[in-house]
């Protein structure tokens, strides 16, 4: 029989062992000084590592490499390196464009005709030339496939055969019945508008699928890097494409290894130890710690993403005053400075700050519980109202908790639920009605390109409700709809932004659709010897590997 003292010996001993291990692991490692080392003392690549190989830790496996369907950042990370579009947003700018496969372009006065002149020396990785026929094929494929990203061009082009005209081997025209000033924006998008090799795609077509099945795990691009290895859940390896048109004499990485490291703590260990050069996707707590590491550079560049709470325009929230009351109740300071430690800026209005036509004077709610109570009283809401807040796994439950605490003070009981991704997406993008449909849901969105209508229509138009778009709150406002319907034909930016100024006031103040929370920045954490990083808000989650260099090489 084990005596009481022996029993406690084991348990105490076990606790001592565990504590000792914790202390050993948490003891500061040698060399982690708090002073920031000057750039000239940037540490070299870890011993045994090839300096011409860039190693990046990514959080999950890219699952879809077909530009016609990929809607994930991870797929874009690979596509951005291996494929190209006609144009690209320049540097960190989202308003200017630089040549990619197109050397130059022009349009007529009313934007009904666009002409793109392709460079003559671009080649696909299979050796075939990038010409006007290949571009036409790629965009026709994108439209005809009818998959997730088809809308990027199908919203402008209904008849690819007549609207895309090959004038000569390196000149392609786009013809429209009505002004289409946004074509260049759509062509610069990080989604859909990539040019793929007809030779390779056609050779891998199966049962009329336009090569979709093959393209999901392969690439057929012309980019600076080509896909050398795709080991699912393990790593993706890209190698330099020697015949790429854009190489110069300077240093460029020969190989890019994207290691799949799902666990955040493991990614942090790897970047701190120098076994990877670049990584991202960290929680605020880890970001704070990484910022103190003198061997690392933590970039939190303003992006175009916006985290928000949908306020469903149905049930008890149908009355705008109730939605206004909830907006006044939220503790913005607590969320931005407490939960996110001031690292993520608060959203201003329903447009990201960097989006065209964002109104910097947009109405901003303050936390005012008294005002919230008053509005609820005016709307005839009695204390004891029950609402549901639902988010997906990994989503912002903290926002729900903040809101729950605040709403309790004005007599509203908020129940918080968390669902797996598939179930949540099924509800968010589905047609289920209230009361099965939650009153409040959390989501994050970013645009396909820099245009207010691209942003607004799918999120707020009444025709985009439920399975028709991403208007999960079934928001409907006649004047807001009217603005979104008029906007695409407006070519004068000042006029466009004036309209959208009114729109933003409607959607946030008069008839709230959301509680905008924060704008998550684009994260990039890299070793100090990695230079040249230039993020662009339009290409969230990509790193333009061509521009990266290593100090001292």
């Amino acid at each position, binding site marked *: 029989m084990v005596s009481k003292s022996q029993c406690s010996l*084991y348990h105490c001993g076990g606790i001592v062992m565990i504590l000792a291990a914790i202390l*050993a692991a948490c003891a500061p490692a040698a060399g982690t000084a708090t002073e920031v080392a000057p750039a000239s003392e940037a540490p070299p690549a870890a011993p045994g590592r090839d300096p011409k190989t860039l190693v990046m830790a990514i959080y999950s496996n890219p699952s879809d490499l077909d530009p016609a369907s990929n809607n994930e950042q991870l797929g874009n990370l690979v596509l951005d390196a291996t494929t190209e579009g006609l144009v690209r947003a320049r540097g960190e700018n989202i308003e200017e464009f630089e040549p990619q496969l197109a050397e130059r372009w022009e349009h007529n006065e009313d934007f009904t005709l666009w002409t793109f002149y392709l460079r003559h020396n671009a080649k696909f990785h299979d050796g075939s030339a990038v010409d006007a026929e290949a571009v036409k094929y790629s965009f026709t494929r994108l439209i005809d496939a009818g998959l997730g*990203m088809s*809308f990027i061009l199908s919203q402008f082009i209904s008849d690819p055969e007549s609207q895309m005209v090959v004038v000569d081997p390196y000149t392609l025209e786009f013809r429209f019945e009505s002004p289409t000033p946004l074509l260049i924006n759509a062509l610069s998008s990080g*989604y859909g508008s990539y040019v793929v090799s007809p030779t390779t795609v056609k050779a891998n077509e199966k049962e009329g699928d336009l090569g979709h099945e093959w393209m*999901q795990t392969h690439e057929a691009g012309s980019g600076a890097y080509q896909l050398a290895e795709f080991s699912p859940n393990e790593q993706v390896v890209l190698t330099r494409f020697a015949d790429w048109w854009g190489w110069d004499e300077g240093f460029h990485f020969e190989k890019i290894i994207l290691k799949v490291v799902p666990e955040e*703590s493991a990614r942090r260990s790897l970047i701190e130890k120098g076994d990877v050069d670049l990584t991202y996707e960290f929680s605020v707590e880890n970001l704070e710690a990484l910022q103190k590491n003198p061997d690392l550079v933590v970039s939190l560049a303003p992006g175009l993403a916006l985290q928000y709470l949908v306020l469903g325009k149905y049930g008890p929230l149908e009355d705008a005053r109730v939605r206004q009351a909830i907006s006044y109740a939220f503790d913005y300071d607590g969320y931005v400075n407490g939960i996110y430690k001031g690292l993520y800026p608060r959203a201003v209005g329903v447009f990201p700050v960097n989006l065209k036509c964002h109104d910097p004077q947009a109405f901003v709610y303050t936390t005012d519980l008294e005002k919230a109570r008053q509005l609820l009283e005016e709307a005839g809401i009695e204390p004891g109202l029950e609402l549901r807040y639902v988010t997906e796994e990994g989503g912002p439950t903290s926002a729900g908790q903040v809101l729950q605490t605040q709403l309790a003070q004005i007599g509203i009981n908020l129940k918080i639920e968390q669902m*797996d991704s598939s179930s949540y997406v099924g509800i968010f993008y589905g047609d289920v009605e209230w009361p099965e449909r939650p009153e409040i849901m959390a989501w994050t969105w970013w645009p396909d390109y820099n245009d207010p209508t691209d942003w607004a229509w799918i999120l707020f138009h009444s025709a985009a409700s439920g399975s028709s778009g991403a208007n999960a709150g079934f928001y409907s406002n006649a004047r807001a709809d009217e603005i979104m319907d008029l906007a695409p034909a407006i070519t004068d930016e000042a006029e466009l932004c004036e309209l959208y100024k009114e729109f933003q006031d409607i959607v946030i103040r008069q008839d709230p659709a959301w509680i905008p929370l924060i704008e998550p920045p684009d994260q990039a954490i890299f070793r100090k010897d990695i230079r040249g990083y230039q993020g662009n808000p339009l290409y969230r989650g990509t790193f333009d590997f061509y521009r990266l260099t290593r100090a001292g090489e």
Partner: protein
Amino acid sequence: MLLRRLVMMALVLVGITIITFLLSRVVPTDPARLIAGPRASAEGVAKVRHEYGLDLPLGQQYWRYMANLLDWNFGKSFHSLRPVAQDLADFLPATVELTLAALLFAVIVGNGIGVVSAVWRNSLADHLSRLVAIGGLSTPAFWLGILAQLLLYQRLGWLPFGGRHSDGVAMPPEITGLITVDSLLAGNWAALWDGLHHLLLPALVLGIEPMAVLARIMRTSMLEVMREQYILAARAKGLIERVVIWKHAIRNALLSVVTMIGLQIGYLLGGSILVETVFSWPGIGRYSARAIVTADYNAVMGVTLVVAAIYLATNFLVDMAYAWLDPRIRY
């Protein structure tokens, strides 16, 4: 008896497919929307639904799935967009390698600790052994794995953070998919060393709890056996203690332990999810975790079937082992 056993196993697997199929369909999910993406039109989503057969009646979906199984076709994964059979072929060897290594550690160390603990009962060795066992049972593998990485990788630099192999090490030709075995077969000692180096930490972390369980079971079993009359008789005959322990005691104590080893296979396969995530080990544990949260029906069913089949086969072998251990047991 063998035929009856095999038929029973097949029926169990069919039952598992029915239960898994129904459970996955009962949850209100929309994998078609998840695959098509937020920007897809209703027509685009419908297209995806049709591609994966999700627009068919439930009965027809199940029948189609079972018919395809006869061709070893597990359907296509909604997440990886590849045939599930291909995914399983890619990821299963990694989990098998990890599980076998963890099991080897658990069996050798656990039984060793249990024997030491029983033979030198109430000694310092016994107390230390039981401390290790309780520590192993009390410590969550996920937490232990992160701690081990912090200490052994980040602070001390003794072991890699995870993954199956280092960049720059030439991999052996794939025969079994187990890097250590394939390296051994190919005589690629660099790859073998590198593979063992990567396997060590995740295998230890995964194997700690089964090791602790086996240690305690072995200790209890040994203590019971050592009280038996035949042990007393063996000592009375003048046999040296080493022979008494190894030839008489351990062999009889193993019966209970062998049962537990079979059950621990289930734990190892299920517990591999967290360990594979922490150590970026590309096995079916991580694959299945992702499949569950994305309602990847085909992947979930494929993994469940394979794991169930392994579990049934293992326990069949355990039953066969009884007959070898105890000649009185005959089937």
